[in-house]
């Protein structure tokens, strides 16, 4: 505290700047992306995913199914992806606003020429870009190695699965951001995110659907059960694209396949995943705009 405080720009006569309309959104997006890249979570996720994917490909090659190339590896990756991507996305999303609130930085951010919507959207888009990058890095590294050891077939399915994983990440990030907005602290938000992950990924398939059917046993209940869970919707979409076998699809997927056919089911499920990527974010924004910082 020995240098005096003065006013910048007085000596040089710099004019007051005008704030560009998109400066806030772009700046928050860039910072969120940069923070995620610096974060070890994301690097660890990409590396783990690539390693497991390569490992699966190598194991299958040893087992004599190498000729099935990407298709077999993709099928093997579905369960891994449905476990890991939601967990990563929910945790990152849950920290978005609650973390700023915990650190006390939320007030300083919102005191800038920035709307609450720009802050929320900038964070969501930055995190989405970061998770997409991690998913693509993981799948990309694995895909490259698989292509080196086995014939390149069914690459389209592999790419489709990358897109599905990215879409699932967007939907779960959206839910994570909603959790973040309604939580008054980071630890509460993270706890809620883990509970949500447990319910959507583990509990839902094992118990939830059975409970729903016992209450109201109908095709509509099955359809609603699918659409109400983005993880389930992506799982059925992935299987539908690979091999629409009724046994592999499970009760929900089998019902949709029989009732609507593969194409219509794919459209309905895609719409459901997109809705999950948008609607929680819209709700989060509506709540966040009404909160005091």
């Amino acid at each position, binding site marked *: 505290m020995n240098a*005096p405080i003065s006013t910048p720009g007085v000596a040089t006569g710099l004019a007051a700047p005008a704030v560009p309309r998109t400066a806030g959104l772009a700046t928050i997006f860039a910072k969120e992306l940069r923070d995620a890249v610096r974060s070890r979570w994301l690097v660890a996720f990409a590396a783990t995913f690539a390693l497991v994917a390569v490992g699966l490909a190598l194991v299958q090659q040893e087992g004599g199914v190498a000729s099935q190339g990407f298709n077999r590896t993709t099928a093997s990756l579905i369960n891994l992806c449905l476990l890991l991507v939601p967990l990563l996305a929910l945790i990152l999303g849950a920290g978005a606003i609650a973390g700023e609130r915990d650190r006390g930085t939320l007030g300083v951010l919102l005191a800038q020429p920035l*709307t609450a919507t720009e802050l929320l959207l900038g964070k969501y888009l930055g995190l989405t870009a970061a998770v997409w990058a991690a998913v693509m890095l993981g799948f990309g590294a694995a895909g490259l190695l698989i292509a080196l050891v086995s014939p390149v077939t069914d690459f389209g399915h592999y790419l489709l699965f990358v897109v599905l994983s990215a879409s699932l990440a967007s939907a779960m990030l959206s839910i994570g951001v909603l959790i973040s907005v309604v939580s008054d602290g980071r630890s509460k938000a993270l706890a809620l995110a883990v509970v949500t992950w447990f319910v959507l990924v583990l509990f839902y398939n094992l118990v939830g659907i059975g409970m729903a059917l016992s209450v109201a046993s109908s095709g509509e209940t099955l359809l609603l059960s699918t659409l109400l869970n983005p993880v389930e919707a992506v799982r059925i979409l992935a299987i539908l694209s690979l091999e629409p076998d009724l046994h592999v699809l499970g009760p929900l997927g089998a019902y949709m396949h029989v009732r609507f056919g593969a194409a219509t089911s794919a459209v309905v499920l895609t719409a459901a995943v997109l809705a999950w990527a948008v609607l929680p974010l819209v709700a989060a924004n509506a709540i966040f705009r009404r909160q005091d910082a």
Partner: protein
Amino acid sequence: MLSAQGVTKRYGNTTVLDGATFDLQGGQVLAVVGANGAGKSTLIKSIVGLMRFQGRILVDGVDVARDGKRARGRIGYLAQNPAFHVDLSVRETAMFYARLRGASEERAREAVEAVGLGGHAEKMVGALSGGMRQRLGLAVAQMGDPALFILDEPATGLDVAARLELRDFIRAQRARGKSVVLSTHWLEDVPATADHVLVLDQGRTTFLGPSSEFVRANAARSRLFFRLNGHTAQAIPLIAAAAGEEVARNGDWLAVTCPTGEKVKVFEALVEGGITILDFRVEEATTADPQAVGGP
């Protein structure tokens, strides 16, 4: 530059800010004074648009509630305990906020230099002292050359030298035609910096006027306690005459309140009256509660 009309904030049935109304012209400084919980921070946060409120606040003609982003573009805000991302360096923090405010890299660098943090530009925010963070907060507040500065308890945690520098900073902004709203519970900051004073007590405005008038009405006072070696009955009228106030008696102790600048007169009166003082205590009337300062 700043107009607040009937600004009210309620939580359920509790009113924490009740109809605050004032106007502040360019080049003027308003001190918002009150005890903790009086509603100072609520008013400050309402002006910046960090809180929803009833009433109307215009910053340079821009409605804070309707167009908060544009209004905040005209405001430089220093929070009571400014918090920044601890994993960014001082330079990165300045660049980040410069981009948010549409300021250039050059302006960010200048702002850091201007608050004396040029030598700490690569230091992580997490490694800065409280005073340095306050300086970084001032650097961020100055980016974009705002017309209105909102400073929430800026002197909190600063040493005497830093507080004097802060006063210089406020005077410099006033000289440049900028407006400043300053919340404080240090009454001595008022005559040194403010043109106008708004006193809040439990959310209600109890005084709004020129600082000279406020200072006259709230001159610092001291509470004096004496234990004398006999002659108490003789001492009471002497003390009362010197202090201009009634003297209270509690056991061996006598107590009286007088203007701080005149407390020596009470001692002189006792000494001249030949009364021996065995013990004494002086309490400065607290500056945290302007209502208490006005009288015992």
